[in-house]
């Protein structure tokens, strides 16, 4: 079945994906498809299980049960193969603060087996796109937060992966930088990269092609933003979320 979906251009397939930590179920039989080249928003409140889901899809965490395929590879048996085709930007800032911008980029370029010329060219292009050319030799620690986030995003895309996973990329960032970020995301998507982005900012949902909303470890809703608004009779995704989450809020999770 996954082959058929693959042929149709499905980048990520998850079926009944579950992850338990002891008695606590972080992800409870979640199922969804992400089509190649689309911007998929994986929404949910804090603690809803979004990061756990991303970690399972990127091969960082073994699922307890269920199936998932990323870029045509099974997450259980081919996690290393998956890693060749994906980029990842974690919630915590993960570039080396005591290295310069160029050194960080060069490091990841080398790890992804880009040759020296590719590294050089792509670095220059990236820095100029971000407006960081002058900061090429600066330590990452000395660059403002917003720029750092954008840099991390660009590094995740350095090796031109098929899919890029972004975990709360715009947390703690000012609105203007957020806008610029989404411009970068669109650019990536328009060149064919599938973007899987988690966020708890419901307004960012409008920027996505399709979204899913996680509530208490389960997928409460999935579809395009307009489909969901229609389904729930809401004016904004925020509203949709509130309607979904309310019964749960009243009985808090363990």
């Amino acid at each position, binding site marked *: 079945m996954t082959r058929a979906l693959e042929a149709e251009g499905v980048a990520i397939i998850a079926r009944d994906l579950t992850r338990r930590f002891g008695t606590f179920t972080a992800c409870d039989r979640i199922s969804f498809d992400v089509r190649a080249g689309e911007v998929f928003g994986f929404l949910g409140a804090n603690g809803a299980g979004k990061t756990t889901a991303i*970690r399972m899809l*990127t*091969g*960082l*965490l*073994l699922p307890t049960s269920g199936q998932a395929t990323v870029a045509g590879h099974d997450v259980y048996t081919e*996690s*290393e193969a998956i*890693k*060749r085709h*994906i980029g*990842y930007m*974690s919630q*915590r*800032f*993960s*570039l*080396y603060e*005591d*290295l310069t911008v160029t*050194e960080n980029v*060069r*490091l*990841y*370029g*080398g*790890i*992804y*087996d880009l040759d020296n010329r590719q590294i050089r060219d792509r670095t220059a292009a990236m820095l100029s796109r971000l407006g960081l050319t002058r900061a090429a030799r600066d330590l990452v620690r000395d660059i403002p937060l917003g720029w750092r986030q954008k840099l991390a995003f660009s590094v995740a895309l350095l090796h031109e992966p098929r899919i890029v996973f972004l975990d709360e990329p715009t947390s703690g960032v000012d609105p203007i930088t957020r806008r610029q970020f989404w411009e970068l995301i669109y650019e990536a998507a328009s060149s064919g990269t599938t973007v899987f982005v988690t966020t708890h900012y419901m307004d960012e949902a409008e920027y996505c092609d399709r979204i899913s909303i996680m509530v208490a470890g389960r997928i409460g809703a999935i579809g395009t933003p307009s489909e969901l608004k229609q389904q729930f009779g809401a004016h904004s995704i925020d509203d949709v979320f509130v309607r979904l989450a309310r019964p749960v809020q009243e009985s808090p999770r363990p």
Partner: protein
Amino acid sequence: MRRILFLARAEVLHVVRDRATLAQVLVLPAAQLLILSNAATFEIRDTPAYVVDFDGSSTSRELVHRFSSSGHFRILGQSASPEAANEQMLHGRVTMVLTVPADFERSLVREGTAPVQIAVNAEKGAAAGIVQSYAGRILSAYSTELGVALRPTANSARATPGDTAPVTGAIRFEVEARNWYNPTLNYQHYMVPGLLVALVTLIGTLLSAQNIAREKELGTLEQLNVTPLTRGQFIAAKLMPFWVLAVVDLGVGLTLGRLFFGVPIRGSLLLLFGSAALYLVVALAIGLWISTLVETQQQAMFVTFFIMNIYLLMSGLFTPVDSMPPWVQTFSLLNPVRHFVTISRALLIKGAGLAEIAEPLLFLGAYAAIMLTLAVRQYSKRAA
């Protein structure tokens, strides 16, 4: 392969830019070596002593003189009062009290034997045993001299006519004592190689454990885990810089040891550095293994310290392995530090060759293989 170089280069940059770690790795070991080598010694000079002489004869006075001129003892006071001596001991002012009984000289002449009492302040720890052996040596040397002095008198008085054996037919041994490898009995020659090993081990294990724990703490480790970088490549890149650093440190330490303490280098340096290279693989692998057990740098430091403590104390570094109870000695065979300490001392002080260090070297080889496998297995890019 190329990936390893990229990552290793980044590692080197980290170290170079981190001034605290640099100091830790280069400056402090040197300083520590210098200080430690001076402090860590069991040699005793000028032990304060008190004499209670009930005899007051020329023999007893000569005996006391032997003690005071030996260089090992410093006579703080002398009297006929045991109470005064006891007071001194209680106050901790003297380490030894020599008591000569009232008929010392007479007993010696008449019966050829006489007791003296040596009370050693055992609270001084290892010093007590050493003081005892110094005293013993002085006494037996004096005994022998007295024996020679008295013997002709005894024999000539008793030679009977018709005794066909010549007067010089007395049984006499001529014993020569030689000290091999450390003829000057220099304690530092013993200590410095051991200390070097300790310092180098600490650097290797502590820094590697800390380093990886730090990445875990910061979140950069996760970013690496998401790349196609394999476990083996990661480990190689991470450990290589520290391996090099530790070897460099060894070289620096060795030079300092030679310059400041005259530590000899009798064996092959190539062999020494070769063994060091092997040993460091073990030390670093242990650090790696520790890093998989902890989540924060602080924990890394504690666990490393805990484990290193055991290893170092049981390695024969401070006190000889031969002095440990047999079952502990067997246990210490499991201790890679012990083997490298043995190798360094054998190479540096005894001038041993490959054949003579083959056994500990084999142990180290086995450990390197085991520890690396264990550490690599333990390190997982994916949480279960």
